[in-house]
């Protein structure tokens, strides 16, 4: 088409709503990918440093200085247990950082989100795009972090990969964390966002079965029941099944619960999003 002499403004929509929505959804993902590429220098340290330090201190420094971690199983077993937790932690952090934090800003100070809401797709899909983007960013960070968890420890990590579980569980966990980011992004504002880390993310990660299998909590029964509300527990247990032979929660529980959390966060996230952009 000629770009020099534009035709008259068309007065009817050029594409069906479905085709317009598909195109706009893809373009929104492309926009997010371009922003990630531009901010890669911030993305990489933000994504890699925390898992690296976690693995380095617990599974390299401690064994080297003779300070054992991991109870009766010993240090090698602990490295193996931690590998699943580190991957799951990277995914949940990325979901929150790549979706919730930008969204809080876009809703709060800048109202930038209003322009994306005017793109030709339903508002629910503008919200879902954020969750899908969070999933992609989480997947990327899981791929970056996995080698750290597998190869930094001083004691060998006993990897026994179940590919079927790994290839189905990873996208599911990534999407759930993107949806979690969407949910948090619509519920916090710039004033309250420090609370997101202080009273939500910290408990989720400390009580997320990262450092120990869920079953090992048996002696503290009340805590074992309480942490079942924490989605990270199911992710860590699932990755334990996918990557190692460590004891883990039954996959018959892990998958349905992760699907349920994904649906819940998507539903609540879309609802919160719509409430903030439409009056």
């Amino acid at each position, binding site marked *: 088409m000629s*770009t020099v002499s534009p035709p008259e403004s068309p*007065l*009817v929509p050029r594409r069906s*709503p479905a085709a317009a929505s598909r195109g706009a959804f893809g*373009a929104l993902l*492309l926009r997010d990918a*371009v922003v990630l590429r531009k901010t890669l220098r911030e993305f990489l340290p933000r994504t890699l440093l925390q898992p690296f330090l976690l693995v380095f201190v617990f599974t390299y420094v401690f064994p080297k200085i003779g300070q054992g971690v991991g109870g009766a199983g010993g240090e090698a077993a602990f490295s193996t247990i931690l590998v699943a937790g580190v991957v799951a932690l990277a995914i949940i952090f990325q979901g929150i950082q790549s979706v919730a934090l930008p969204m809080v800003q876009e809703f709060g100070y800048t*109202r930038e989100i209003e322009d994306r809401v*005017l793109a030709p797709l339903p508002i629910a899909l503008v919200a879902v795009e954020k969750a899908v983007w969070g999933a992609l960013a989480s997947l990327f960070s899981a791929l970056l972090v996995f080698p750290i968890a597998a190869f930094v420890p001083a004691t060998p990590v006993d990897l026994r990969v179940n590919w079927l579980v790994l290839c189905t569980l990873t996208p599911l966990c990534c999407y759930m964390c993107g949806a979690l980011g969407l949910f948090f992004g619509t519920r916090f504002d710039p004033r309250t966002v420090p609370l997101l880390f202080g009273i939500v993310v910290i408990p989720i990660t400390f009580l997320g079965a990262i450092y120990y299998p869920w079953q090992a909590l048996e002696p503290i029964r009340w805590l074992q029941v309480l942490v079942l509300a924490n989605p990270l527990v199911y992710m860590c247990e699932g990755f334990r099944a996918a990557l190692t032979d460590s004891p883990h929660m039954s996959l018959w529980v892990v998958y349905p619960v992760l699907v349920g959390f994904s649906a819940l966060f998507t539903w609540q996230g879309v609802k919160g999003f719509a409430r903030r952009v439409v009056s």
Partner: protein
Amino acid sequence: MTVVDEVIRTEALTKDYPGGIRAVDGLDLSVRSGEIFGLLGPNGAGKTTTAGMLTTRVVPTSGTARVAGIDVVAHPVAAKQVIGVVPQTNTLDRSLSVFENLYFHGRFFGMNARTARAEADRRLEQFRLADRATQPVAALSGGMAQRLMVARAILHRPATIFLDEPTAGLDPQSRLALWEVLGELHAEGQTILLTTHYMEEADQLCDRLAIIDHGRLLALGTPEELKATTGADTIVTVVARPDALDRLAGVLGGVAGVQQAVRVDEQVVAQVDGADGIVPRVFAAAEAAGIAITDVSVAEPSLETVFINLTGKDLRE
């Protein structure tokens, strides 16, 4: 009027906010293709809510709103393809450069990469932003950011663009630059709806105006038609001691040639038909009543006068 001639139509459009606040009350509007249509009213008159309903961001309580024949409530995705919006606040994408803001807007609206790039370049040139293309949008001045938002709004060639208080907060020079841009778009045949509470802006730019207050349509017409409704050819504004103003309004009402005199804030506004010798007559009448006048100014009737006639108050309140 056929659907093609009429780009925007609202019928009995109404919006109630929780708490029983009726922001827009049974508004009937019709905007023709190619015209600049203004919604003029004070802050809180319902202008932004009306624009919000027409652009799918506010759901009407009742009534209908159509843009290019599309019901915006029933078919928001179809409607969003034919509208362009310049909101009141700067909603440029801070994570992207000036060029990328336009490029991705084109992609959102279904352009392929090549077309989006070409259209973005063309608009940057047209809006004199080409030398800023690679800069982050945070580096733009208020006036440039506003021009970029207008460029973004028209990039996908919408049937109409909406500008909400486009020059609020702009310095006078940027305001003139924006008026010039809108004038060019108007010359190209772009339909434009803008909301404003600056009567000069409404007077200068708009082909037709709707004056609204408390969500209701008070008057509709060209700026000239509206000003002609006052029946006056001169407006005399008189300032005196505040405690004497009400009495002064009464006195001036009796002066020959004065059609009506009302107190507005800290002054009395007299509408006059036949201005010869009016200033001496005003002074004489005030002196006879023992009221000391501190300032008098004479002007042609403006949209401000129309608004005062309609509501008894000032637009700037």
